[in-house]
């Protein structure tokens, strides 16, 4: 290097110095250009080199994209900012006279445009240098461009992967819970994490279940009244100002109806994204997908609760039924020559019929018994408890009290005091003196009793007082009759006469009397069975909702003990 320099003339030296600097610059550029792939830095270097070398104060590099030629780097050129369209006209207008293609002339990947060099016009060699520099840069720019593309592709891919992860994670989480509140909580956490939103909420409703309501920074309480409007929305949408106001939500919120079957059973709302970011179509799709998953989970958890509730109720009913069964006398007290039989059949639900024949020790030495059929309002465990209450009350009362009106009155007051006002019991209470057939009775709001006399006459024990437990301080009057040999007494609950057939006709008193007349000669237990058979024949396939209780007393010919 030093030897060749000594042989050159001063002019030559200047000339070769210039060309050497060009070579050095090219070498430096080549090294620099291949050392990093950041497009901005790369183009910046290109522009700096040209501008520095020729003392140029303004210049831009534009890159061709599908949408046209765009300015990527701009220095000292306010008219052509980064991102603006680059055209030859715009370039000239901005005072950029020197225009070079980057890459092959037939398919350039971009343009370098420069202002007027302060050093004067470029000679051929300088132009060649610029061309060489741009040729060098072209392939590097092409690489950088494709790298940038793959980076943004990768970012999109990352987002998708993240979406899938969130979906998978949520589905796993949902599978592990059968609690609607937990479903709501997981869904909202996932959304607020996925979209970096601080405001989110869910409101969901199902008949027979408490509403699900979780909200952070939003008020969704009133959405239930707008179920129809929510149902008309697409699976996911961003609420514009007017629509948002109608739902009382901030504009830019995303709303996703929760649908189950054809019904709208709720809505999920995510507040506007932070830092002004907007929801994309991908986001809408993702949101709708997640909510669809959550809707299934909500449905499952509600259904699960229903099943549990049903099981619980069945258990309760079974318990009530067993309590009730225990309360019926295993064996009716012997009434000497009087044949007595009774049967109770519960409808599907546990009802509140009760019958009993209770010996009255207070009446000693006569043989008196309290005979009763009681129909308690309501069903289920409560009716069972009330029934046991009535049984205890009656048994305790007749133990010391012989007056039927006082028994009825006291029972009424006790029931009134211990039960809610909508709970009551109808009862036919009858004190039977087995040795004589003497009967004293009160009918407290109960269905009529029937006396079928031996000669075929029919007499009714009609209602003579108000049901027990409805009003306080009621008085009851007793009436009397004598059950004679060959007579039959039937006491029953309204389940007998109210039994309906498929045409919704009542079984009624007349049919009951007919059955009693037809089979009255049979033992009491058989008469009871015949009545049940007649009811079943009559009802056919019509469902029976009420308990049926039937008691029959027949006074035999030998009426003494």
């Amino acid at each position, binding site marked *: 290097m030093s030897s060749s320099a000594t042989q050159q003339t001063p002019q030559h030296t200047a000339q070769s110095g210039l060309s050497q600097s060009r070579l050095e610059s090219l070498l430096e550029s080549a090294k620099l250009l291949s050392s990093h792939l950041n497009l901005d830095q790369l183009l910046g270097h290109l522009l700096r080199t040209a501008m520095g070398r020729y003392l140029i104060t303004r210049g831009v590099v534009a890159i061709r994209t599908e949408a046209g030629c765009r300015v990527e780097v701009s220095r000292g050129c306010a008219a052509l900012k980064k991102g603006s369209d680059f055209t030859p006209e715009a370039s000239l207008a901005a005072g950029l006279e020197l225009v070079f293609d980057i890459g092959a002339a037939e398919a350039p990947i971009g343009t370098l445009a420069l202002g007027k060099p302060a050093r004067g016009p470029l000679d051929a060699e300088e132009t060649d240098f610029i061309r060489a520099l741009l040729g060098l840069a072209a392939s590097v720019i092409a690489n950088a461009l494709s790298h940038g593309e793959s980076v943004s592709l990768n970012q999109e891919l990352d987002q998708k992967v993240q979406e899938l992860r969130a979906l998978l994670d949520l589905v796993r989480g949902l599978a592990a819970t059968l609690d609607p509140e937990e479903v709501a909580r*997981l869904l909202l956490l996932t959304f607020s994490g996925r979209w970096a939103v601080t405001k989110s909420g869910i409101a969901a409703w199902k008949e027979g279940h408490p509403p699900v309501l979780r909200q952070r920074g939003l008020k969704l309480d009133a959405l239930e009244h707008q179920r129809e409007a929510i149902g008309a929305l697409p699976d996911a949408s961003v609420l514009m100002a007017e629509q948002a106001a109608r739902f009382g939500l901030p504009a830019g919120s995303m709303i996703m109806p929760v649908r189950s079957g054809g019904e709208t059973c709720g809505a999920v709302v995510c507040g506007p994204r932070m830092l002004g970011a907007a929801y994309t179509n991908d986001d809408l799709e993702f949101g709708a997908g997640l909510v669809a998953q959550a809707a299934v989970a909500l449905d499952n958890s509600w259904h699960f609760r229903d099943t549990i509730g049903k099981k619980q109720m069945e258990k309760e009913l079974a318990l009530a039924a067993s309590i009730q069964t225990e309360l019926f006398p295993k064996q009716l007290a012997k009434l000497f020559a009087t044949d007595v039989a009774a049967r109770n059949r519960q409808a599907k639900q546990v009802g509140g019929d009760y019958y009993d024949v209770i010996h009255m020790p207070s009446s000693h030495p006569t043989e008196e018994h309290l005979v009763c059929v009681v129909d308690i309002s309501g069903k289920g465990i409560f009716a069972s408890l009330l029934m046991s209450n009535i049984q205890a009350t009656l048994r305790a009362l007749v133990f010391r009290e012989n007056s039927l009106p006082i028994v009825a009155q006291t029972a009424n007051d006790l029931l009134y005091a211990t039960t809610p006002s909508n709970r009551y019991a109808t009862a036919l209470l009858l004190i039977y003196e087995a040795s004589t057939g003497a009967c004293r009775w009160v009918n407290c709001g109960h269905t009529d009793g029937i006396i079928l006399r031996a000669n075929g006459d029919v007499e009714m024990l009609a209602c003579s007082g108000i049901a027990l437990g409805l009003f306080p301080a009621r008085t009851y009057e007793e009436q009397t009759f004598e059950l004679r040999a060959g007579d039959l007494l039937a006491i029953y609950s309204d389940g007998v006469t109210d039994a309906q057939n498929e045409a919704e006709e009542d079984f009624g008193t007349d049919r009951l009397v007919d059955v009693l007349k037809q089979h009255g000669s049979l033992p009491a237990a058989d008469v009871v069975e015949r009545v049940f058979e007649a009811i079943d024949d009559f009802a056919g396939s019509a469902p029976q909702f009420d308990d049926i209780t039937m008691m029959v007393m027949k006074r035999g010919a030998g009426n003494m003990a």
Partner: protein
Amino acid sequence: MATNFTVQRSTTGNIVVLALNGFLDAHTAPEFEKVVQQEFDGGNVRLIADCGELTYISSAGLGVFMSFIEDIREAGGDLKICNLAPKVAQVFEILGFDSIFEMVPAVADAVKGFENPAKEV
């Protein structure tokens, strides 16, 4: 199921450091939510999530951070995130958390952030 997740609590002055360990996903997010809620209810609003031992975070896990940040900042505090493993940090960045939360390399940096609020994002 891989649902090992624990939170260890320690304090530096009036700053509470929650050291997260394991998987923060749909299964474990409610647990973390409870922890943060407790701190917030207890009036502790200067919180640092030390994610050094956090091996995975899902959207539901990130949701916990989002759920509290506004309330915490309104109360004059902050929830800073530090010590993220590269893989976990990537998730935070993909979803744009780095523009909302102060994310710093170490617990000490986060503590400094509290002591010198001028440096806060």
